[in-house]
């Protein structure tokens, strides 16, 4: 799919039914989804679900309202990609015969990737960053022979800078909701 336009961030009860329900609400929108990631949040008993997806601002508004009333969901917000910092982790198993160790190590250093495991002819490298950065790393390793890639899917938070003002073309479904 094309670049995700939004990062959906949902704080939900730490149980699989709440997760299922929240993901069901997202699925029903029938929108392209780039990644889904879930893990503990800063609040005990609550998980953070992050969905990178394509939508427009009006569709985003409708989905967030549906999520906010979903049983088990504590908070939901949809950040425009421009207003969010999104990062993911990838683990790459790559062919690593002795003669390419030097070259692989240099590439890893370039991408600040970490050698997390190694065996005869195999390196497991860990890289973190934005989606484009991870893709670049994977491409750089392709010629060595990638055996397996596992990506976490992005997690996102609101960026530290003030949000970019809405573009004039974006329409909100409501003018005033009190």
């Amino acid at each position, binding site marked *: 799919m094309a670049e995700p336009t939004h990062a959906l961030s949902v704080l939900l009860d730490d149980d699989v039914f709440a997760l299922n*329900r929240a993901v069901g609400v997202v699925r029903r929108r029938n929108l392209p989804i780039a990644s889904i990631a879930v893990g503990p949040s800063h609040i005990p008993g609550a998980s953070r679900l992050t969905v990178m997806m394509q939508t427009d601002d009006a569709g985003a508004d*409708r989905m967030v*309202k549906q999520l*906010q*009333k979903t*049983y088990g969901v504590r908070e939901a917000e949809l950040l425009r990609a421009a207003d969010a910092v999104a990062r993911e982790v990838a683990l790459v198993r790559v062919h690593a015969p002795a003669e390419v160790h030097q070259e692989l190590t240099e590439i890893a250093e370039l991408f600040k990737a970490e050698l997390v495991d190694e065996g005869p002819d195999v390196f497991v490298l860990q890289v973190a960053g934005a989606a484009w950065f991870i893709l670049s790393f994977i491409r750089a390793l392709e010629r060595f022979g990638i055996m397996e890639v596992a990506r976490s899917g992005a997690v996102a938070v609101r960026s530290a800078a003030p949000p970019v003002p809405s573009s004039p073309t974006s329409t*909100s479904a*409501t003018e*005033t909701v*009190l």
Partner: protein
Amino acid sequence: MSETLSGAQILCRTLVEEGVQYLFGYPGGAIMPFYHALGDCPELRHILVRHEQAAAHAADGYARASGRVGVCVATSGPGATNLVTGLATAHMDSSPVLAITGQVSRPMIGRDAFQETDVIGITLPITKANWLVQDAAELADTVREAVAVALDGRPGPVLLDVPKDVQNQKAEYRPKAAARQPSPTPHAPSFADGVAEAARLIAAAQRPLLMVGHGVILAGAYAEIRTLAEQTGIPVITTLLGISAFPECHPLHLGMPGMHGEVHVNRAIQQADLIVGIGLRFDDRVTGNTAAFAPRARIVHVDRDPAEIGKNVKVTVGIAGDARDVTRRLIEAVAPRRCDAWWEEIRGYMRVRDESWRDGLSPEAICRALFAVTGEHCSVVTDVGQHQMWVAKLFPYRRPNGHVTSGGLGAMGFAVPAAMGVHLARPDEPVWAISGDGGFQMNMAEIATMVQEGLAVKMAVFNNGYLGMVRQWQQFFHGKRYSCTPIWSPDYVKLAAAYGIPGWRVERARELEEVFTEANAVRGPALVELVIEQEANVFPMIPPGGSLSEPIETAPAAAAT
């Protein structure tokens, strides 16, 4: 003070504690411990249905008529899956239904055990919440939570899946400590500014309309809506589920909008400069093509569910709140006014349609006769299709919340079982289930339930030998190819006799009043077949996806393909 009970006993105790009186259900393997415990619980009356779908519809009917939670019970597997249509109906129409399903024992879950089905997964999108109860110790609190969630805010169905070994498991039971405080609405609105803005718009409008929906009935805001209307003279439109929220005979009542709304109602919407929508969701059957809906109007939208505001139509002022609270505030904020010129204009849109019916057996004659016999306390439960539209528009509802129908889901087969629930909520008032010959045959097995349980539901069947609404669409939009819509019916009078209840066949208008009088006077259930014209249509009609400005008022002369 606690005692040790089985999960099944805890379930029964907690239901009684929550004020439940009736259960509609059907036993089976995985729910048997619960049924065993039920025998020691005379406070709970169980109605044995003939199909679990009927249990869910009956619980829904009870919930809508009583405002309390309606409970249905089924076993795992097929029992649970049969509930699905009824739960989806309750979900679409915001009805507080609690479904209790048996589940295979915990060690068997996920192993495709006999009659195992993932009912939690199946019902996730059609319930407000559902729970797989993992331990009998959690059961009481889960039931309390489930009932609270079903009733809280915008009501809706919930489901409790209880594994068989949890029903047998012993646990400590503690009665509910104190009356539960109503939980605060999650998005507690401070809508004073919205009300002031709405009042300003109402004062300035030349052509205002009030559109009221199911939210008004759920909030019991009948008197408030009436006061608001009378104070302002604004015409009142009632959506399909808003019918009986405002008296049909009131001079300010305009009618039903949308796909089968009368021309003057839809035209008023198209000419309006302000629509104050209270407790409705601007469903596509109401708006037609939203791009062409009410093009001149600003919209004030009041709804309990903030997610509804702005979902389907663009609103100028959205107020998230209870219909009664918000309407009270509107009454205080709005200065008295009149809408005489606007009414004059609307009266100019009204016209009489010239329709003739064989032997005078028109929907109008049927509704008139039924009302004459049953009086103003009658509850009418309709099914889905042509008869539903006719009865919605023509029965002169007086009783608040006297009209019950499957609106959002449009589930055929709803009326007969739902009427059983309505009857139990209103045992001293006449309850009529009106169906077509298609929908009636879907759940007519419930006559046996009525007989066995002594439920005095009166049934009327509009028999035209067709799945009439589909046939009408075929006539208008599919070149009159009546594919698979002719439908055979049994001899309904003999069917009634087979169930041991009185039955009548009406073919002429002049027989109506006498038959309705007799049927209404019967102490138990009764069945009236109304043999209406075969190819009658519901007029007017907005084609699906069309604009409210372009109604079909007569059958197309040449069939399009």
